[in-house]
């Protein structure tokens, strides 16, 4: 009766079992686990505070996330700020894990070369990561061809010098909560552009790019899919939909596209948006589509506005799970009894990162060098435990 146990990928196991566990209440630096949930209730960073939570639904957790606060380059005098990444994998966990390992390093390297943080730097970091992953697919082509069918969405936010850079590939989303003093509430502002074939403009873009292919988007199970296979039109990985050389044996036929293609079908280029922070901007909610299929932007910002910061990401995840349970005509308490893998029939992997923007602290530059945070969401269950 061994319960799968999650390990955060940062040093020092947050889910430790043993006699000293009681001493780690609340202030656990690396987050903790509760069944299929990993969470970090509250932590502080250069520009404010943060809360993170991940729930696993797939047999292998496909969502990954990270938060890096402090220096954003390898230079001591370089830019500092906060980097948030949410990576929602599909077809397997490999691509999202790869991004979690390498994207921030690529970003730092390129920011060092350019001595700045900019949209261009972020875009280059995305493309460098894509290139590295595709070359891994190539290297392992003979022994692990199925790597060509694994991909990931990639949402990044960089908060630096009063700006929020949002770069997105796929259908994760970041929503800003802005205070409305007139009625004491908070309004939701979506900062990311999504690339999901359910959006008409995305389908139009695909049809425009592939005028000779009437099957470029197909309605399947009442859901629009690119080539009838995948909902997102942009991604990292998915080598078999990028280069024809990976759409053949030894990749198994069931993972392949039946007909050959000459032009890449999915695009790795991020949509980038730069938002200038306003004193009324209170917080950012980064989440994979698992959250947004249950909660609207406004519902999510209302929850964050109405409850205390401590554990707010976990609260959002729970709100989504309660709705998922209701849709499946069951109780939330019963949903929790369902094992990973089977859980996918009830909800997707869900990752939530909430960043509170305490803007007075942005100007306190002397704190910058001392407050450095690096935390990654749970690695999930990677192998059977005895």
């Amino acid at each position: 009766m061994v319960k799968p146990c999650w390990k955060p990928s940062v040093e020092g196991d947050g889910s430790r079992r043993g006699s000293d566990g009681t001493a780690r209440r609340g202030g656990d630096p690396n987050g903790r686990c509760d069944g299929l949930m990993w969470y970090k209730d509250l932590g502080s960073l250069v520009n404010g505070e943060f809360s993170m939570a991940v729930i696993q639904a797939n047999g292998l957790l496909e969502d990954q996330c990270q938060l890096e606060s402090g220096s954003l380059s390898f230079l001591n005098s370089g830019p500092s700020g906060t980097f948030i990444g949410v990576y929602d994998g599909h077809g397997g966990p490999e691509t999202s894990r790869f991004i979690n390992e390498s994207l921030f390093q690529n970003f730092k390297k390129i920011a060092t070369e350019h001595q700045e943080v900019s949209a261009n730097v972020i875009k280059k970091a995305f493309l460098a990561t894509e290139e590295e992953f595709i070359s891994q697919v190539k290297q392992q082509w003979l022994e692990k061809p199925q790597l060509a069918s694994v991909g990931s969405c990639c949402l990044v936010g960089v908060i630096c010098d009063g700006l929020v850079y949002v770069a997105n590939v796929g259908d994760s989303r970041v929503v800003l909560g802005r205070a409305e003093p007139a009625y004491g509430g908070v309004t939701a502002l979506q900062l990311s552009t999504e690339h999901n074939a359910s959006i008409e403009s995305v389908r139009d873009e695909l049809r425009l790019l592939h005028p000779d292919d009437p099957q470029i988007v197909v309605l399947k199970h009442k859901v629009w899919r690119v080539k009838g296979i995948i909902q997102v039109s942009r991604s990292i990985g998915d080598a078999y939909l990028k280069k024809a050389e990976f759409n053949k044996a030894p990749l198994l036929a069931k993972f392949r596209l039946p007909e050959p293609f000459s032009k890449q079908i999915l695009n790795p280029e991020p949509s980038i948006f730069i938002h200038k922070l306003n004193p009324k901007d209170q917080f950012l909610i980064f989440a994979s589509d698992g959250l947004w299929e249950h909660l609207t932007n406004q519902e999510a910002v209302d929850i964050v506005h109405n409850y205390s910061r401590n554990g707010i990401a976990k609260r959002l995840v729970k709100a989504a799970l309660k709705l998922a349970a209701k849709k499946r005509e069951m109780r939330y308490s019963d949903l929790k009894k369902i094992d990973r893998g089977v859980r996918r029939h009830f909800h997707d992997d869900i990752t939530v990162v909430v960043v509170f923007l305490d803007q007075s602290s942005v100007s306190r530059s002397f704190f910058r060098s001392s407050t450095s945070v690096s935390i990654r969401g749970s690695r999930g269950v990677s192998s059977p435990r005895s």
Partner: protein
Amino acid sequence: MKMGRFRGFSMKHRVNMLFRVFRRNRSTTGYYRLDRPSSCWKTKASSCLFNMTNYLKTKAKAICSSSSARNLGPKRIMSRGYTQFGHDPNGGKTESSDVPKGQLAVYVGQKDGDFQRVFVPVIYFNHPLFGQLLREAEEEFGYNHPGAITIPCRISEFEHVQTRIKQGRTPRKLLSWKRQASS
């Protein structure tokens, strides 16, 4: 420590659940609709009639006493049309008000036929035999299917799987498949 406590709790909970289920199995008030003779369902007309009377009976009882719904619940089967009309009178304010604790509603049936609403113990979902049915559901409807899970198979086939799971449910066996499923 946290995990240790959690495990302990979980184990206790599951053992409790086992005994609860075990007791249920021994009782003669079998709560699955499997106990119904299948001949009732041979023809569409009789099944419709049965559905209708059952539905009316259920609703009448539910009106008289809300607590009776639980005793009656598991035996209740309805065609999809009826349940959609009547199963959530609160407009979705409470979660699945008529579903007994520890169970969830699924729809079973084949294309163009009647879909029957059946209550299934939640822990059956972790059973490998049930997993096969779920894979079929995923192939047919995808994961994004709105509403309750719909299993595209004949009700007799579904009952067969349930019976097999039920028969294999001595506590020791249950523990072993639980272990397999969670590893």
